[in-house]
């Protein structure tokens, strides 16, 4: 096996056997299985659903679930590596062929990869580490009518509640701003937006 695009590590022994088994599936069966796989890849939290769909596929096509799961594990190695390394569909196709999958099936999978990769890339970026991510912002503003020191005040205050994700917990931060501070804050945030946009 020549150099693969999706990984630099040696591929497990079982993979070529699994590819051989895959080649035995009809085009229709392969297409159905691919659909199940991509549905899982684009919604990685739906593990239950994925396992159910695999089990249904196994029953409908008279394949044992155990071997099917091993085949799926082997297949998934490629898209997972491809995502990390921003591979093109050409490279994905080449890798599957190098692993022993038929031309036809490799091309089909690569095509599906091309269609799904924007969604998958966005998901991977979304999983990238964020420090104290700002999740939500609530606000209210009002007028201070009076206080124990000043009978009549009439000044505007703005209160923000920021919801920050610290590790796995959410923390609420409450902040009060004066009006000039608010305008200054707004101005700065607009500058940030311009900066972010120039880098996108």
């Amino acid at each position, binding site marked *: 096996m020549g150099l693969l695009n999706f990984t630099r590590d040696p591929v497990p022994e079982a993979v070529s056997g699994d590819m051989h088994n895959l080649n035995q599936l009809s085009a229709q069966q392969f297409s159905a299985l691919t659909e199940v796989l991509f549905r899982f890849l684009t919604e990685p939290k739906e593990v239950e659903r994925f396992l159910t769909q695999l089990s249904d596929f196994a029953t409908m096509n008279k394949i044992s679930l155990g071997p099917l799961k091993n085949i799926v594990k082997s297949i998934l190695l490629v898209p997972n590596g491809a995502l990390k390394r921003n591979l093109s569909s050409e490279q994905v196709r080449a890798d599957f062929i190098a692993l022993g999958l038929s031309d036809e099936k490799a091309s089909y999978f690569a095509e599906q990869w091309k269609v799904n990769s924007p969604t998958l890339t966005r998901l991977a*970026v979304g999983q990238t580490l*964020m420090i104290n991510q700002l999740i939500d912002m609530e606000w209210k503003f009002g007028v201070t009518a009076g206080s124990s020191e000043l009978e009549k005040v009439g000044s505007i205050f703005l209160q923000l509640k920021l919801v920050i994700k610290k590790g796995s917990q959410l923390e609420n931060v409450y902040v009060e701003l004066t009006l000039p*501070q608010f305008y200054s804050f707004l101005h700065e945030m607009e500058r940030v937006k311009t900066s972010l946009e120039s880098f996108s």
Partner: protein
Amino acid sequence: MAALGAAEFAALQSLLKAPSKDAVRQLCQECFSSPPAALGPLAQRAGPGLAAGLEEAEQLVSALHNLTRHVVYRGLTGAEDILSLFPENFHQNLKNLLTKIILENISAWRNEAQASQISLPRLVDMDWRVDIKTSSDSIMRMAVPTCLLQLKIQEDAALCGNNPVVSALTMELSKETLDTMLEGLGRIRDQLSAVANK
């Protein structure tokens, strides 16, 4: 906050023993700024300068504190309003001097009162930085801009006394989050202008 009683105005007359007008001025400022709990020690310091015993000093300091705070509370700005607070038989020159001193300080005092108002923790400073994420364990090559925002927040001044606690909170915003935040801030600005134009 009620106006002063007769006994308090009587206590103010101790100021006649002050060595200079500046001393009176100084004492007025200290009495206004001092919280009620700190009036005792202030009286102890002020007493000797006025040739007053402790009890007399305490009554004076308390009366002066109440007078200055009352003027600020009611938002009195005119000389007439302040002069009319004093009783008929109050020493004329002292009355004029006190009124003059109060008028000199009234807006600074008002600002001081507003600054020490109770509030949620206040924003004192804000800094930002834009980073470009180039690589992570989920994707080896990318170019994703992200914003780091640091807010310096000061706890309620009234709770911290002279040592306000300032904490720095650094948070990360994605472009989407920033857009949503700006939408919210824009809505606040629109509502503020609507209120201002009424």
